[in-house]
């Protein structure tokens, strides 16, 4: 088995949380900073500000003005990028291990030193508008997805797209970005994750020399107070018809607890339920709709388990030729009904557990992937132990617990169906 040292975890005096994941196989490191804020923390009317700020974070500081950050990373042979989710914003570089300190110096500098001046703020807003056009405005299935989520979450900000609504992006200002930046970008709201060929002691020393010099901010770290979803009793349906659509699709999403909000083994049971229902070619849905019937050409399910608040359980199917979306929905309903009545078989459960647990071993082969697992877990209410104990928790789930979550959560009122259709000419 793996001979590397265990994951280390500590805090600097200014509140920065640090996780070190050893991987000695190649002389490289993955350096990530996660902030505990994402699109779901965008102020009302300012949707997209978390994501816009993520773009603006590449604009420079006093010490590393315009372009210097990316030029330095490139000069040192590094790769870099950033991403914004509902619950976190993350920045990363991958470099040869001797440059870890240089990455930390750059990232610590822009944690509080961002300078936003001049025309580049507005031209970057144009870039984001183009990004939205690329991802959403030119893609009917992305538009349907956006409407589905806006309908599923009637109150919670998960119903607003991460990139923001088009009309609000167009109005985002430099001051909005700076206000958001000052509120959330501080060491006690951040998690540093270093994975790779480096000793924990060395990471601590480098982190103290760089991040450690960022002053401990006044007042408590920003709290995330999200509104809660009301109980909705109506099953809802959204449809998008577009002349460009040549392949109809039906999808649905249920509101379910995520790890952060689940009780007992619920979230682990939901992970296995997603695998058994539609995680593979031997799943219930694939067998019933694709292999045994000729209802669909493809079908599957998924579970968004690392939300800070209420998560989602999704199901989708691509109908076979000349099969209506309603007929496919009926077939999906039948499969789900069975799962809500009868326990899954021992063989099925064992197969699903093996598959999920193996993923964790495969993940150990990829330091960047491991870093992301820790980053997402720690910014959504989880701990290092939650990651390391995850295989045992999955192993412990019983068929009765799976039946229980299927009954409790895969029921009318908790979901929205989305249909993507070709518009009649």
């Amino acid at each position, binding site marked *: 088995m793996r001979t590397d040292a265990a994951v280390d975890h500590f805090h600097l005096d200014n509140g920065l949380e640090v996780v070190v994941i050893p991987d000695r196989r190649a002389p490289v490191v993955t350096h990530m900073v996660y902030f505990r804020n994402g699109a779901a923390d965008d102020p009302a009317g300012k949707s997209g500000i978390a994501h816009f700020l993520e773009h603006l974070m590449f604009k420079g500081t006093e010490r590393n003005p315009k372009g210097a950050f990316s030029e330095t990373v490139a000069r040192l042979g590094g790769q870099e990028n950033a991403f914004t989710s509902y619950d976190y914003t993350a920045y990363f570089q991958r470099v040869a291990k001797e440059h870890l300190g240089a990455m930390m110096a750059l990232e610590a500098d822009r944690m509080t030193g961002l300078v936003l001046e001049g025309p580049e703020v507005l031209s970057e807003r144009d870039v984001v508008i183009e990004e939205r056009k690329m991802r959403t405005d030119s893609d009917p299935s992305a538009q349907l997805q956006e409407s589905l989520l806006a309908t599923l979450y009637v109150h919670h900000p998960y119903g607003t797209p991460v990139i923001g609504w088009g009309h609000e992006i167009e109005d985002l200002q430099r001051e909005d970005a700076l206000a958001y930046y000052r509120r959330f970008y501080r060491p006690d709201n951040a998690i540093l994750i270093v994975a790779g060929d480096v000793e924990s002691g060395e990471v601590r020393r480098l982190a103290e020399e760089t991040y450690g010099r960022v002053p401990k901010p006044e007042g408590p770290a920003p709290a995330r107070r999200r509104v809660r979803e009301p109980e909705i009793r109506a099953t809802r349906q959204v449809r998008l018809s*577009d*002349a*460009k*659509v040549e392949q109809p699709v039906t999808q649905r999403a249920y509101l379910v607890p995520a790890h952060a909000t689940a009780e007992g083994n619920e979230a682990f049971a939901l992970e296995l339920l997603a695998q058994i229902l539609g995680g593979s070619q*031997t799943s219930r849905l694939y067998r019933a709709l694709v292999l045994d019937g000729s209802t669909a050409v493809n079908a599957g399910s998924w579970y968004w388990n690392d939300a800070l608040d209420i998560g989602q359980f999704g199901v989708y199917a691509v109908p076979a030729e000349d099969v209506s979306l309603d007929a496919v929905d009926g077939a999906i309903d039948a499969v789900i009904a069975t799962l809500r009545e009868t326990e899954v078989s021992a063989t099925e459960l*064992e197969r699903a557990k093996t598959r999920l647990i193996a993923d964790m071993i495969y993940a150990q082969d990829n330091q960047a992937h491991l870093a992301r697992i820790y980053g997402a877990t720690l910014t959504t209410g989880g701990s290092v132990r939650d990651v390391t104990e995850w295989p045992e928790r999955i192993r412990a789930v019983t068929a009765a617990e799976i039946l229980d979550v299927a009954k409790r959560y895969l029921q009318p009122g908790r979901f929205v169906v989305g249909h993507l259709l070709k518009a009649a000419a």
Partner: protein
Amino acid sequence: MNAPLSHARTTSRARALVSPSGIEIWHVEDYTVPLVSMEFAFIGGAAQDPEGMAGLANLMAGTLDEGAGPHDASAFQERLEEKAIELSFDASRDRVDGSLRTLSEHVEAAFGLLALAVNQPRFDQAAIDRVRSQIISGLRREESDPGARARDRLNALAFEGHSYARPADGRIPELQAITRKDVVAQHQALFGRDSLHIAVVGAISPEQLTTLVEKAFGSLPARAHLAAIPDVGVGHAGHREIVPLDIPQSTLYLAMPGIARKDPDFVAALLVNHILGGGSFTSRLWMEVREKRGLAYSVWSSLANRHHAETFIAGTATSNERVAESLSIMLAEIARMAEAGPTEEEMARTKDFLIGSYALRFDTSRKIANQLLEIAIEKLGIDYIDRRNDEVAAVTLPQMQAVARRLFAGREPLVVVAGQPKGL
């Protein structure tokens, strides 16, 4: 075993093994994580699809893991899943690729299933029909995707009259006409030991690996039966075409002749392309199109080489009303590169990046296996990883200026735009 696997040591640790029937295997033995990762390829992919059967290699490859030997599709997939064995096949333009990943405790079972899929695929009619319907459904989805539409049209024009002109995934009416007999015949034609390349990384001894590879591939015919594919240039220089799609943003591709991998100036050209549009966040196209003007989220260029064609391709996606401006900036940057080439400073920065970042390609088993596989297919030699950075360092500025002129001077690109561009 605790020995660090640095990229510099990957080659000294990569050994060439040969199976009893003569199959060469490039192997890196590493026990840090208890898994085995294998990447392999048979040369001869969609380019080998007979006339009127575009998509045959894709359909064949997609059906390989849908039942083999005594197991129908379901039983075969169950056996993979029971042990979390990942096995997949994929046909691209010039190759049929396979990928196998398993926990080391299940390596015997994994190679057993691989052997069945490679040697005794059932190609049951129901499985062929199912995979075909999935491919067709994917092609239908792509019909509303501006990137896919522009790419397909670009290939159709650039390689008109050549098998590269056809979409590698196939064409719907041609896929519909393919029979089981065609699929079986294509499997027999493409899978031979002489067209096979294999790279393996992970927790397995050379002895066991050689035995298992022989079991999986040793009974294949000694030779594949590949049709000769002629080399082809990039046609329709200077032509501009619009693929009309009712969307607010256009996707633009442009193509020109590129440079062969074996050309002595290829590495210099790689640096030139990096400076022009290959290096994200720092390239000239990035600075001019995105940073300075906010015209697009993405803008890039690349040297895209196939086995029988070399191309330079660049692209972006920008609002319909800004397509003309974006294209003229891209063309101006290409012309500026042709005229003056890169600066000394750009060359130095790019060398630093390419040399410094090479190690990042070797930090997972699958990435190492893929790198080795590409090196094997390009016939660069098992010691290439040790030589590669020296090749980059040796490039000179005059060499880059010359190759930039050779690539771009006086060239008119073929341009394809999907969307509703204004003013083109």
